[in-house]
Each structure stands twice: as C-alpha cells, then as structure tokens.
C-alpha cells in the first residue's frame, strides 16, 4: 500500500520532538479525524535553522511530517512558503489517494507555524494572507482520483 520511502520515514522519522522557545509553533488537524500535526520552527535571519514535529496519526501522516521537516530544514522562510502538499507526496514517492490529506496537513502545519512566527516576530511573510489553518485537509482527496 505504501511506497518504500513512506515506510522508511515511518520507521525512522526525522526531526521528532519539540523546540523550546521556538520562533513559531503550528498545530493542525483534530483528534476526531485521527490526525494532528504539530510543527516547531527555529528561525534566524530568515532561515529555518531547526524544525521538529510531533504527529498523532497513521503511517502516512508520520511519514509526511518527517519528509516535510526534511524539505524545509536549512531553507529560507520564502522557500518554506513554496512547499506544497504535492511536493511532499512526490518526495515520498507517492501516497495512496485516500492518504493525500496527510501531505496537505503537513503543508498546513508548516504554514501554521510560519503564521505563528509572523505574529510573534512581526516579520511579514508574503503569501500567508490567504492561508486558512482550519481548512479541512480531506477536501483535497477528491482531486487525486
């Protein structure tokens, strides 16, 4: 059902944990749906120095979080803003259609943490104006058939 890359990230997830006094923290999803992602960002000079996550969810939710952290670590805030759920899914060598919402959740978790950073630091981040952290990630599943 899952690609070898998904299983590898599920077995050995990167960047699990939390960052004390993080520059930005984002949490998306809800326990009713069975997945919650929490992302911690440490940002200095516009660069993501460190990123950690905690996820309650299925194998693909954990793998998507892990992959998303790898994709943004060491990148600029602007580059992190460009990360799409499709890029996360592609980096994982694909996700089953019913699991695409996990990659959406990962993208939302990052944007949500960046939004928190923007609020805390006052640094304006372009592209966050339209971001809605409460958007239902499951709505994206239909597109993937």
């Amino acid at each position, binding site marked *: 059902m899952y690609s070898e890359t998904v299983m590898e990230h*599920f077995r050995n997830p990167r960047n*699990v944990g939390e960052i004390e006094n993080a520059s930005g923290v984002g949490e998306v999803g809800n326990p009713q749906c069975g997945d919650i992602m929490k992302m911690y960002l440490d940002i200095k000079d516009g660069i993501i120095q460190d990123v950690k996550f905690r996820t309650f969810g299925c194998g693909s939710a954990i793998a998507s979080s892990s992959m998303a952290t790898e994709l943004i670590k060491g990148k600029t805030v602007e580059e992190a803003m460009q990360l799409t759920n499709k890029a996360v899914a592609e980096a994982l060598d694909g996700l089953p259609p019913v699991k695409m919402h996990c990659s959406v959740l990962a993208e939302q978790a990052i944007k949500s943490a960046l939004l928190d950073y923007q609020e805390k630091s006052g640094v304006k981040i372009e592209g966050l104006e339209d971001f809605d952290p409460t958007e239902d990630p499951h709505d994206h599943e239909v597109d993937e058939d």
Partner: protein
Amino acid sequence: MHSLIYLDNAATTKTDPRVLDAMLPYWREEYGNPSSIYQLGSRAKSAVENARSQIAAIFHAQPKEIYFTSCGTEADNWAIIAYALANRTKGNHIITSKIEHHAVLHSCEWLEKQGYDVTYLDVDEYGMVQVEDFRNAIRPDTIMASVMFANNEIGTIQPIRELAAIAKEKDIFFHTDAVQAVGNCDIFVDELGIDAFSLSAHKIHGPKGIGLLYVRQGIKLPPYIHGGAQERKKRAGTENVAFIVGLAKALELAYKNKEERLASIREMRDYLKEQIEKNIPYIRFNGHPTERLANNLSVCFQYIEGEALLLSLDMEGIAGSSGSACTSGSLDPSHVLLAIGLPHEIAHGSLRLSLSEANTIAEMDYVVEKLEEIVDRLRQMSPLYEKVMK
C-alpha cells in the same frame, strides 16, 4: 526475526491441513458434478449430502434445513433481502442492531432504499443489545429481526435465546449472523429458537468461499440466486463440492474438543490482557467482560492511531487489526466502537487481537514486549501525549 505471530483469526484463519486433505480428492479424482447421473456425479452428490447431514447434526438441525452458499455475506443477504421482499404484504419494518457486520447493515440499508423501515438498536457500553429495547422496537408491521450472535470487533455475545423467544412470541422471523460465534458457541437451533443463521468456513480453519444458511423448516424463503435446481431449488449454481466437504470437516474439528480448545485459547487471551494492563498505561478494553468470545481481545491505546500501531506490529512480525478510520477506508472509525460510546479519538487507537489454538504463551509475552515499545514510541511522537506529560 520471529516467524509470523498471527493474531487476526477473526479476519480469517489458516486452513487446517486435515481440512485440506479432506478437500483434495474432490479436485483430483472425484471432480464430478453432483447433478450428473453417472457414478462420478452421484459420488459427488453423496459427498455433498453426507456433509450436509454431518453439519446438520452439529446444530441439532435437519439436513434439509442447511443451504450451502458462497460465503457468510451471501447467506446474510439472502436471509434478509429475500425474506423482506417476500413478506412485504405482511409488513414493512425490520429490526437489527447498530453493531452488525456490513453484510447485514448494508443489506438493511439497501432495503431502506426500497422503502422498508429499519430500526437499528443501540447497544450498551459493552456492546450488548438490550432485550427490552428489542421488545419495545417491535411494531405491528415488523416482519423480521436480525441480530448478530457475537460481534467481530469487540467479541460481545448477544442474548440470542431471549431475543429469539420474543421474536417467536410476536411471530417475527429471527435471523442471526453467527459467523464469529461458530466454533466458539453451541448453536442448537431449537434450544435457541432461531429461524435462520449464517456462517462461514474460513473463520474456523476452513476454506474461503463457502458458507451456509440454516433456515427452519416451514419458513418460506424464496431463492436469492436464480438458475438450476441445486439446493432443493433454493440456491442455484453447481455445488462447490470440495469446499462443502471442507466446511463439514472444519465444523467437525471446531466442535470436537471445543471446551478444551477454548479453555486454552481463553487462558492465553486472559494472560495477554493481564500483561497489557500491567505494562501499558492509558488503555481501555472493549466488549463485555464475561459474555465474550474466548479468542477476542479489543483494546484502545490512548493518544496513538491504530494504523501506525498495526504497521509497527507488522514490522515485528505480528498481525492484528484495528477499527481506526485509516484501516476502515473511510474518515470515521469503526461503527461498532462508536456505538459503544467511544469518542472518535479513542476509537482511532483501537487494536483487535484474535487468537487461535496455534498461538502460545511465549508469543503473548513477545507481543506484550513489542506492544510496550511500539506504544511508547508512537506516544513519544504524539502531540496529544505531549499534553498529558506536561
């Protein structure tokens, strides 16, 4: 690497080699069609009828009350849909429960689309249908009730005798899906007073692809599969001779030494439960504490999700199942876990382990050791657990 520890016997079972041996001749030499008049055919016919007689004896039924089907699902569909369609002039109302297998639930939902009225009975926190709720649900236009014998997810055994007695008093056709109960419970049709029951061979170390429907003599149930005159014109299609022989053998083995076998399985199950309880915090066991299948253990681990748990167990060579949304193919966790009142987030962390006599106490120790590691690892990753720890 351990060899596979199989704890998903409620999903399916390993075919018993004695069952396989009993079946093989019906492909190799005795491949005749039971409807053919030459000796090869009549020997196949005899094999089918002998199997029917042996099976009927196990349930204290008559051979002519046993109809072979392709699976338990077909038997459920047949009993429910064909009976409802044939008795529409008598009434429009059907009673079932919220925790039925989809074979029953979706048959009832289909009937609703045809204009029938279905009552889905609630269950209590242990997954038990309340006898008085059943009595109160009966209306003048109630024609049929179908309540499962034992639940596949949480193992709770329903008060079938009491429900059937009420149905009889009110002249309602009473069917029970006994797929999980077979081999675990005695199903004596007269003692229980049931009108029909379904079962499947592959839950009791028989082959996949064969089941049966018992229908009490005198009850008019029209055919559901139309065609030839097989099964006394009630279920068309060439008899699956080898599988019918396999079903009979599997049932014979399941009911031979049943008590000793179940005692050994129950002992392992109880040990497993005890060890989980002792070693892992924040858990909840599901189903009735005493009125339950000997081989079923259903447990929810808080703050983690069931699919991640199953994948992790699989990596350690342990096969189990879960009622989490991720394994149900929908966004909601199992309807059974929701019906017993579990919140979604708890239901997502469910694990069902179902044993067979092939398991050992040493395997249970290994499972608990691995479960402890896995649950802890997933909890360390969970933002819900992070909140608990703080």
